[in-house]
């Protein structure tokens, strides 16, 4: 499968291990990544807050670039960031719903010879795994089942709400895909109070205390539910849950020390890749519980 690949900003900025892990994991599933290296930031909701048309035009441009790759043989557009998924879905909803508006945005793009045609398929890697590759296929390729690893799914906001915009319904229960994937990889799903809540990242510069309290509370809830680690499809959540975790621990007044994995990292582990290849040494909270678990499994495996 060939995809027009949008990595987003954070996966190449403060969470470079995500982009790296995705590049490692993709060949294991025969996914060819054609990177959209000319595209710009999705706006993460902030540009839309500043000027809706600006966000819609920037994302229409990204879609148009992806459609050029799709015309050349890519199957669809894929991203690895929930915030990109949510922000781009919001823009796409407006662009697809109204022809005069889409024409107006396309007029701005026309100077560059680009046009966005209504109806692009843009899926987060999580959705692609479940809907395009299929969990049976994922299950078949597992080399090192995540046996005895207790994984807490952290969905965050942008990839699960609003449900109608994100295409979540009975035939596409996308708000359960992390659960299903953890299970397919042989891990144990740990449900806890914060799994669909906000990590707090968007207000870190505006109300740091409230922001860190959110991150700290959810990580604490996962500890109380005896999770070994969390997994998230969103690198911005990762910033607040991992990079800021020591500060979040101070904000909620309890020690935390909970490893947080990016989705392709968890997948890579189950596919037999080593934690370091997946960039897990770059995390602020050392994923000791996960690494100890993987070495013990490796050590215990028959030679």
């Amino acid at each position, binding site marked *: 499968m060939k995809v027009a690949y949008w990595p987003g*900003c*954070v996966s*190449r*900025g*403060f*969470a*470079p291990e995500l982009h790296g892990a995705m590049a490692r994991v993709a060949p294991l599933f025969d996914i060819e990544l054609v990177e959209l290296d*000319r595209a*710009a*930031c999705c*706006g*993460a*909701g*902030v*540009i839309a*807050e*500043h*000027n*809706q*048309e*600006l966000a*819609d*035009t*920037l994302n229409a*441009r990204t879609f148009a670039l992806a459609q050029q790759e799709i015309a050349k043989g890519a199957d669809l557009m894929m991203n690895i960031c929930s915030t990109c998924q*949510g922000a781009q879905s919001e823009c796409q*909803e*407006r662009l697809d*719903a*109204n*022809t*005069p*508006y889409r024409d*107006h945005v396309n*007029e*701005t793009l026309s*100077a560059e010879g680009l046009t966005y045609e209504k109806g692009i398929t843009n899926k987060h890697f999580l959705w692609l795994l479940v809907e395009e590759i299929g969990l049976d296929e994922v299950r078949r390729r597992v080399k090192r089942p995540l046996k005895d690893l207790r994984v807490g799914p952290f969905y965050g*906001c*942008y990839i699960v*709400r*609003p449900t109608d915009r994100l295409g979540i319904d*009975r035939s596409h229960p996308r708000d359960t895909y992390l659960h299903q994937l953890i299970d397919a990889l042989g891990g144990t799903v740990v449900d806890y109070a914060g799994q669909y*809540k*906000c990590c707090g990242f968007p*207000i870190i*510069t*505006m*109300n740091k*205390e*409230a922001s860190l*309290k*959110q991150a700290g*509370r959810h990580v604490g809830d996962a500890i109380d539910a005896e999770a070994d680690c969390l997994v998230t499809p969103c690198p911005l959540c990762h910033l607040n849950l991992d*990079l*800021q975790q*020591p*500060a979040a621990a101070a904000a909620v007044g309890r020690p935390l020390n909970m490893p947080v994995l990016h989705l392709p990292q968890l997948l890579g582990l189950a596919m037999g890749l080593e934690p370091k290849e997946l960039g897990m*040494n*770059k995390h*602020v909270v050392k994923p000791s519980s996960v690494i100890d678990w993987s070495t013990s499994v490796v050590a215990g495996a028959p030679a």
Partner: protein
Amino acid sequence: MPEYTLRIRRYSPESGEAAHWDDFEIDLDGHRSVLDGILQAKDRQDGSIGIRCSCRAAICGSCGVRINGKPNLACHMHLDKACEDAPDGVIVVEPMGNMPVLKDLIVDMDAVHWKKMRRVTPWLLPDGDPPEREYIVAPESMIDITQTMACIQCGACVSDCLSMEVDPLFIGPAALAKAYRFVGDPRDGQHEERLRDLAEDPHGIYDCTHCFNCIEACPKGVAPMSQIMRLRRIASADHGIEDRNNGYRHEHAFVKNIEKNGLLHEADLLPDSYGGKFHPRAVPELVTSLPVILRALQRGKVTPAGALLHKHKASKEVKRIFRDVHDREERYELNLYVVGEEEDDNPPSMHADAAGSQLPAERSPNQ
């Protein structure tokens, strides 16, 4: 007649007993509402069940509860649908969140919701003397605020607001949507004062964390979060309100960052959100962030060169888009609540090059 099981959370603070769950078997058609189910249980099995309700038609906003963990009006959810959503077929009904429980399913709306509503001065403050007769407004100038006028004060959005969960002082989605109802009203004469008040409040418009829970919760399509974003947009772009919470600075730092780099350069965004590396406000913030920065460097997340030099630069095409859109005389905002979605098999006949003049302009009462 199909049977359903309702599991209702019971709690009477004055009894001194802990909260507990009671199951009730009800027999009603699937198209009847959860409220009908609660009322049947109250009528036939336990008259002491506490529920507040009136119209039974999703108009009065009295019967806000959580059904299977999600806020809604009890009268606005069919039993068969609620049963399908219930993990083990038992419909779980509990009181709304973020507000104290008075009894069973009844929460104290006065303590939270109505208090916050009063916080935003929810009445018209016109300039000058009132006209001799009624105020005359162009109908199209009011279309924009019909979305916030659709609010029925049920509190579903307040129930699940994730910012309020950690910051109970947050003004919250319902009250801020109400604030937009007046900021968007051409008859009101205090737009800037209202916006300045809400922007400067540490628990005001910049305390919203963008979680979409209120949009998901609202049974009337008010989309409170979208109204909060409009308040921010108008406060920042039309009134240039530089608030003490860094809301204005963060927005402008982010937009400039993308205009310059194409992709977000986080190492600049953080100091710029506080006014720039050498701004008096930024210095203490950067000092307290030092441990985080050092950890990131130590783990190789960021390299010093990567943090100082950003090799990715915005292409001239991206810069042109910023310029073109910023140069427009009016901001365009497409509100799907107002214009609706096109039918797939009924494409509009409007010609492409006439599009510009047909676009709904964002109503900007101050321009």
